[in-house]
């Protein structure tokens, strides 16, 4: 199995809308053992100046990994998901994710590098909402590197 080197520079358009629900924020917050009331209690979030529940700082991974799935499941990419190890991750928040957001993510393949018998692949998801005028309002930029381990790695 080899990784297709032509993946670099490829992008995948925003495919589906991710509706950020209150219960999903609460569920994700519990799953990362967050206890801050702004994730659970709307009044506590409003007291801090937010319009609704605030998502935890790594919540955008849900949207980013859905976008990544387009690449990983792309038969042309040649990626064996069972041999994927997460190497690094970054979240840059242009604003916090708030319950009620309708998020879209455009995926960019920024780097593909052979490593031993495997490869390191770096992707970037630009996460945004659409305004009434269909203008993009940036919410978060996530970058992620995955190592696809070769045999014996």
């Amino acid at each position, binding site marked *: 199995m080899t990784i297709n080197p032509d993946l670099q520079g490829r992008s995948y358009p925003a495919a589906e809308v991710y509706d950020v629900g209150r219960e999903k924020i609460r569920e994700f917050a*519990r799953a*990362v053992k967050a206890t801050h009331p702004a994730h659970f209690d709307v009044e506590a979030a409003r007291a801090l100046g937010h319009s609704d529940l605030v998502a935890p700082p*790594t919540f955008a*991974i849900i949207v980013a*990994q859905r976008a990544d799935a387009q690449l990983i499941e792309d038969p042309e990419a040649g990626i064996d998901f*069972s041999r994927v*190890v*997460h190497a690094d991750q970054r*979240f840059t928040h242009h604003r916090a994710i708030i319950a009620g957001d309708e998020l879209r993510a455009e995926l960019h393949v920024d780097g593909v590098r052979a490593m031993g018998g495997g490869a390191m692949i770096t992707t970037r998801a630009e996460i945004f909402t659409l305004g009434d005028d269909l203008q993009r309002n940036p919410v978060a930029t996530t970058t992620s590197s995955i190592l696809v381990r070769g045999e014996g790695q």
Partner: protein
Amino acid sequence: MSLKFEDLTVGQEIGKRSIDVTRQDLVKYAGASGDFNPIHWNEAFATGVDLPGVIAHGMFTMGSAVQLVSDWAGDPAAVVDYQTRFTKPVLVTDTTGTGEPGAVIEVAGVVGALDADAGTARIDLTVTFEGQKVLMKSQAVVKLA
């Protein structure tokens, strides 16, 4: 309580905490995040792909470690940037039914840098499992009011 930029100094500790992790926690994280890679919940599958056993999602470790920063900042929305490298896996043993954790992750944070123009503090996290760092360059940037 709100943090003031002028009260902070580089090297200042923001606190520490221990995070108990069980196999059930990994199943919960899989469901909440949508990451169902079986290396995080199935022993036979994990060892079959040359891992020492079931390992925590890197994103579970990253996501739970930053809670120290969210609580210190007083508002999770103040965390404007957060990055890490995943260097070692957190092996979670099967303690189902015993009430014991399958792994314990230790988190400590210090103020690593201050940017007066941006009004931000960079918090450097040290995240360890069994005495070894599992995250490297784990940095959260906090915007101060």
